[in-house]
């Protein structure tokens, strides 16, 4: 137990030294570390609770995704049956999470089934080998055909929706000019957004809360809005209200002339004549062609610029717009014009997002937490160190050397993993100091016992280590299991606690098995003690 080969001793010291050195980048300003080689840049990340910032958990509306899909199927069914000249009665309806249609003639049911089955695609595109399809077409009896979306297909669609949403969210958050936002998927239908330093997420939430589905559509001038409100709404039109107060009704055709997907750029500027904030936009080639054609055909008529089913403005087309660019004016403030431009540039979300969890911490509070955490850490460590000195004297010095290296190694490993340090994480480190000396206590008490049992100094030390190390391993593994579970279930600050606790256990076991033993071994070789001052 007390014999180390030269190479083994060297290995232990080098390992400890390298791990400790990993903590070095934390002591230099971030800007300076950025100029270092990439392998030296790893450092601790402060959690949002320490550096301040916003944490938002967004949820994609799965019902919306499902409804969109069913509506799309309904339109497909209608078109397919019309194209195939198959008669159906009572229309195509969305009912019980499925689309149902009643075929008029009994003999048409089989051909209709065959036609509708062509709508379904294998899941996963060309790579799909699961044999599952994105649409289930069944004969429900009585001439009714039911088209449902299988769960696997729904999951697949949600996954794609989330992926798309994350891209859009990323673009929108980046437009805010914040530092290193973190955007990641969580579970099946959630997106986590962490923005360090953002104290008031109100504007961010406004930006993320809009799907930003932009459409250019014609205003239906055949019916005045008040009559439409009274119920005389043409089937190809719908009633929308204005985006800005007071809510003004508009009758707008359902057909979309150009959609927001055809925009290539949008900027907030000022109108050259009136001086009010406007949003100027550019179409891509196909958008420009469609827009040019529509405006040429409808000179003198009003068209509506619709965002998320609200009419932003409804200007009259004075002349054909062929240049593929234009501007939207609609009683904007500088901020709202800016926001609209951001939304248009970033693109539309495939489904609405809702904020289901929000946590923000101001920078002042974070700084306060750091200071308090540091103070507690210092005081706690000092108390433990003094106690160990008083209790074990020389061996207390050994224990304190071990625990100091232990803590340095915790910081080294945390930096190496780019782990997040949170306030409970600091508490975890302080606790580790308390528990790390336990390994020394176990060893020393065992040595005392062996001495009492009548062994001589060196054999007591040897036996003390041998017997105590097994116990140290067993007792630390149980705590490590608790830390691992905590890491798995926890989020944010709690996960930070689990990380420091877990790493603390690893370094504690390492120091107990190697460093403490090495130090004592050296001392034994140097002193050749007849008695142990413990």
């Amino acid at each position, binding site marked *: 137990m007390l014999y180390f080969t030269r190479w083994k001793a060297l290995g232990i010291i080098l390992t400890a030294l390298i791990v400790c050195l990993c903590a070095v980048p934390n002591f230099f300003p971030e800007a300076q570390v950025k100029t270092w080689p990439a392998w030296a840049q790893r450092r601790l990340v402060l959690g949002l609770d320490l550096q301040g910032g916003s944490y938002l958990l967004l949820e994609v509306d799965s019902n919306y995704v499902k409804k969109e899909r069913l509506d799309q199927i309904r339109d497909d069914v209608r078109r397919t049956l019309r194209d195939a000249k198959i008669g159906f009665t009572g229309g195509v309806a969305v009912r019980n999470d499925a689309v149902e249609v009643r075929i008029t003639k009994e003999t048409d049911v089989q051909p209709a089934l065959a036609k509708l089955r062509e709508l379904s695609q294998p899941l996963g595109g060309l790579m799909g080998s699961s044999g599952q399809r994105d649409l289930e077409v069944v004969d429900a009896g009585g001439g009714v055909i039911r088209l449902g979306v299988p769960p696997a297909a729904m999951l697949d669609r949600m996954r794609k929706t989330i992926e798309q949403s994350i891209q859009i969210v990323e673009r929108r958050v980046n437009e805010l000019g914040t530092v290193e936002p973190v955007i990641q998927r969580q579970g099946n239908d959630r997106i986590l957004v962490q923005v360090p330093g953002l104290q008031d997420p109100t504007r961010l939430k406004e930006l993320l809360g809009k799907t930003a589905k932009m459409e250019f559509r014609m205003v239906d001038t055949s019916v005045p809005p008040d009559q439409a409100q009274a119920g005389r709404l043409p089937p190809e039109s719908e009633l929308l209200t204005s985006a800005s107060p007071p809510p003004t009704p508009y009758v707008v055709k359902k057909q979309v002339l150009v959609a927001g997907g055809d925009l290539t750029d949008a900027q907030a500027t000022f109108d050259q004549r009136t001086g009010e904030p406007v949003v100027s936009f550019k179409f891509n080639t196909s958008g420009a062609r469609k827009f040019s054609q529509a405006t040429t055909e409808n000179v003198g008529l009003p068209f509506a610029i619709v965002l998320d089913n609200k009419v932003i403005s409804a200007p009259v087309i004075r002349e054909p717009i062929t240049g593929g660019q234009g501007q939207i004016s609609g009683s904007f403030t500088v901020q709202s014009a800016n926001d609209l431009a951001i939304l248009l540039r970033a693109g539309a979300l495939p489904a609405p997002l809702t904020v*289901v969890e929000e*946590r923000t911490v101001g920078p002042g*509070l974070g700084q306060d937490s750091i200071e308090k955490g540091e103070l507690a850490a210092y005081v706690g460590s000092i108390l433990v160190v003094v106690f160990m000195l008083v209790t074990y*004297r020389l061996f207390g010095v050994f224990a304190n050397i071990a625990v100091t290296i232990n803590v340095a190694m915790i910081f080294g490993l945390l930096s190496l993993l780019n782990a997040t340090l949170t306030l409970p994480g600091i508490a975890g480190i302080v606790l580790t100091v308390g528990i790390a000396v336990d390994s020394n206590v176990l060893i020393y*008490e065992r040595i005392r016992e062996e001495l009492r049992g009548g062994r001589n100094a060196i054999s007591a030390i040897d036996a003390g280590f041998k017997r105590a190390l097994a116990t140290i391993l067993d007792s630390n593994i149980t705590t490590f299991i608790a830390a691992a579970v905590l890491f798995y279930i*926890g989020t944010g600050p709690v996960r930070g606690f689990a990380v420091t606790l877990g790493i603390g256990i690893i370094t504690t076991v390492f120091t107990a098995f190697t460093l403490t033993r090495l130090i004592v071994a050296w001392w034994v070789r140097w002193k050749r003690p007849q008695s142990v001052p413990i």
Partner: protein
Amino acid sequence: MTQTVLIGLGVLIAILTVVAALGLLPSLRIVPDATHFDFTRFRRISFPISAALSIVAITLFFTHGLNLGIDFKGGTLLEVKARSGTADIAAMRTKLDALGLGEVQLQQFGGPENVLIRVAEQPGSDAAQQAALQKLRGALGDSVDIQRTEVLGPRVAGELLAYGMLGLMLAIVAILIYLWFRFEWQFALGAMIANVHDIVLTIGFMSISQVDFDLTSIAALLTILGYSLNDTVVIYDRIREMLRRYKKMPMPQLLNESINSTLSRSIITHVTVTLALLALLLFGGHAIHSFTAVMMFGVVLVGTYTSIFIAAPILIYLGVGEHREDAPDTATPAKKSKA
């Protein structure tokens, strides 16, 4: 101020280190060598007491309940700091009550300029919670700085609670399986009974003190679990060793020896953990105050007691060491006559 204190303490450590290294410090024995307390006899007292306390804790849990924090209940929480002077809680209350958001709790938090505002979960969807936050921000106006906000919708809160509980169970089962592999099943069972006892009593404490029960409480509970087990395992390790070495020693005596020989370690370790926790409790700030308070109770008060007075003696009832006489090398007829 704190800087000077810290530097002073640092100097003290340096001096102590030198003195200790030179061997000039007197030896401090916190626990006298070779104690012989009859811990297992205490089981006739400690078991009924623990049972009674557990029943009290469970009753408290069902009558008083836990003060579910925002993590598990949903709703809105704001920590605000007055821009100047102390915060006028009464005026704030009038303003916020007028918003019609249901029950609004205001509470001084930390210093006199800090106020914690809690608003119960709003009926309806997640959007309703967001609307409430907007209203609160508006009503508070410029007189205060908003230091921290937390808004949780009903579903997320429910999921977090379920996850937390699941985690707790998972940890217990995982540890149980580990102990089963390393020891015999009786030890695993004994440790689990001790574990559940720890958790039940700590939950009772949280119910009485009405500290917020939130995600950090789950973290505290898991840590208590880990440390209490750490302690239990140290004693169990010794019991196992003694069982191998002394095949004829009666169980109560063997347990006593094991507990006594690990007693000084138990006490010294608990002093160091307590010192660390004490520092966190006194200087760590209010953000982790309830976290450390719960841990203090669980680790220091319950954990140690459990390992010594519950986890070890219960092995007698679980039948540990009963069949040692059958071991071929030490079978003695004298012992068998007793059974």
